[in-house]
């Protein structure tokens, strides 16, 4: 199975040149490969400033990397022909955070669904186009008769976001990139939207990249996880391993800080967590977490820890595990659990009628 969408050693800096000390490294040496034709959800988790939005924009070809390469079907995104770009735009679909901004308030909701049908020639007739759109809406739990013909402001945030999932579904993409798709949606609707997204990966047998700050939803929908901190991958691998037994001190801090909706699982008592440093990291000569790390050693200040393969299904960028072998960047995906998701549902699936 060939890599479909691949980032190889991608670095993105903003401001100044590479040698300018004032530049900000938004993403450093990031590698990831998505394999075609298998349902899988890979979560990329990070707090604000971790580089996750930069990563989304790089993977969509909206930003060019400062160093390294992002390619689709082996073709560098920055050097695509018109035809290649058109294919890329259809096969790689994005779902963004804000279900308000992507709509033009003067057009009915139908517009965002019918434009791609026409642009990419998905339907031979009006009736067929209508049927495609209605099927896609039903698949995400919306009733077409209550959705079509309305203006965006007449739908709730959750409904608008589900329309965006339906739109992605309509195009039968090969890859989906969802950047914080539920962060502006109420808790009671998040499960439904993420459920629709996950079902789509199973139905279409495609890889999904789920970018989020919310580790709990990432755990629920993903098999594999990549944890970013200040532009660097600190831990990656099987989501069960990373969430249940985090190894990197940052991942531990992050998981320990999540307020669990349970009175049994409480915030660990003990000293307050380390002070976050207000400065933006730009020093390339040490571990980005060194200034907050309870386990920091002298080497952490002077050299950047590489990703070390601590287990078959996990890699950690921390000198605490320096006895483990270094993971070559192109082998990041090899740490991921290959199990994947269950096979596609039969086509006569029942639709959840709520909306």
């Amino acid at each position, binding site marked *: 199975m060939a890599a479909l969408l691949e980032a190889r050693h991608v670095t993105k800096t903003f401001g100044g040149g590479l040698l300018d000390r004032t530049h900000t490294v938004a993403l450093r040496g990031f590698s990831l490969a998505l394999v075609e034709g298998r349902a899988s959800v890979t979560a990329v988790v990070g*707090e*604000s400033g971790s580089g996750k939005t930069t990563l989304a924009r790089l993977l969509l070809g909206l930003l060019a990397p400062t160093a390294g390469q992002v390619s689709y079907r082996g073709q560098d995104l920055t050097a695509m022909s018109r035809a290649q770009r058109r294919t890329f735009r259809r096969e790689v679909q994005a779902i963004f955070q804000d279900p308000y901004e992507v709509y033009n308030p003067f057009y009915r909701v139908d517009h965002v669904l019918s434009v791609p049908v026409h642009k990419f020639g998905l339907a031979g007739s009006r009736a067929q186009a209508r049927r495609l759109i209605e099927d896609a809406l039903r698949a995400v739990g919306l009733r077409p008769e209550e959705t079509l013909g309305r203006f965006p402001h007449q739908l*709730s*945030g*959750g*409904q608008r976001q589900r329309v965006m999932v339906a739109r992605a579904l309509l195009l039968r993409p090969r890859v989906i990139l969802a950047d914080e798709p539920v962060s502006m949606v*109420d*808790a*009671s*609707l*998040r*499960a*439904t*939207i*993420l*459920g629709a997204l996950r079902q789509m990966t199973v139905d279409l047998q495609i890889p999904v990249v789920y970018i989020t*700050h*919310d*580790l*709990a*939803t990432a*755990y*629920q929908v993903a098999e594999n996880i990549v944890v970013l901190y200040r532009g660097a991958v600190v831990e990656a691998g099987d989501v*069960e391993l990373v*969430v249940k037994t985090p190894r990197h001190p940052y991942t531990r*801090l*992050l*998981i320990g*800080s*999540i*307020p*669990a*909706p*349970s*009175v049994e*699982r*409480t*915030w660990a008592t003990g000293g*307050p*967590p380390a002070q*976050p440093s*207000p400065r933006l990291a730009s020093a390339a000569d040490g571990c980005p977490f060194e200034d907050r790390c309870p386990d920091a050693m002298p080497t952490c200040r002077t050299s950047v820890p590489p990703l070390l393969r601590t287990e078959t299904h996990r890699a950690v960028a921390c000198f605490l595990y320096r006895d483990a072998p270094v993971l070559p960047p192109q082998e990041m995906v090899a740490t991921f659990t290959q199990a994947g998701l269950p096979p596609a549902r039969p086509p006569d699936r029942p639709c*959840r009628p*709520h*909306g």
Partner: protein
Amino acid sequence: MAVRSTPSHEPPRGDGRLVSPDVLRVNDLSVHYHTPGGAVRAADGITFGVRAQERLGIAGESGSGKSTLALALLRLIKAPGRIEAGEVWLDGRDLMTLSDEEMRRLRLARIALVPQGSMNSLNPVLRIRDQVADALRDHGVEITGRQHDERLRDLLARVGLGPAVAGMFPHQLSGGMKQRACIAIAMSLSPKVIVADEPTSALDVVVQRQVMDTLAVAQADLGASVILVGHDMGLMAQFVDRLGVMYAGRLVEISRVRDVFSEPLHPYTRMLIASLPSLDRKGAFRGIPGLPPPLRNLPAGCAFHPRCPLAVDRCRRETPALRETRPDGWAACHLA
């Protein structure tokens, strides 16, 4: 069990003084927003009490009326919103009957707000020192420069900020530091009640925990009660003693937080908790079908009945009142 401090529908004593141990008591509070399309009943008949040194949570999804309630407690509702009815008792006085000037003096001094989005609530062109001085001066505390510096250093230390922060502008602080500066301002006059409206909604989880720890320390220092308003049930589970849950402008349940999570009384609470992603078990994560109703046009009877799997005929006709269905556990549900 002479006086229950949880919601009761008894009016306060004739002389206006409450015998209940409640520090703050809210009776039948309603806030409507008057829009061209009709009145939006953002908060409707809210009744509850806050006990001394208690942490009370008010949880709800967007549009449930929780922020409206928070602002109404401080009488900070702006047009087109209006407090239609109700009483808020603090220190033996009904805040709703005070003059604007009396209320202004009471704010911060007796009941303080930690607002939503600290980024926007600080004045960007004033140093932190001057913002605190403004607040104090506004409440008649005139102190000289050196005294003020000492008091400020003490105040900042109590929220875990260094003295250098006093001389900084808001843009020089991180989100978490700004939110802690807001807590410092809120505690500057030792209020009895601190209302924190989504104090950490814009912050990362690591910083969020630090801010909540800061708030806990500040509360213990002052011996104050805290009303935490928010949508994050996880934060509620970690922070509050008792939890009220709002749905479509009404309080549908108020119980000890332990009971809310182990044995929720209202079907909405039960489904809301089931919709929260867990870090312990995979697949334990179900959405609530349907949508919250428009507040301008609530369904008859219980506002939750169109989404409720247990709804019976009575739920469609009769609005359930909040009643005590187990010790210290109140629910507005015919079936509870």
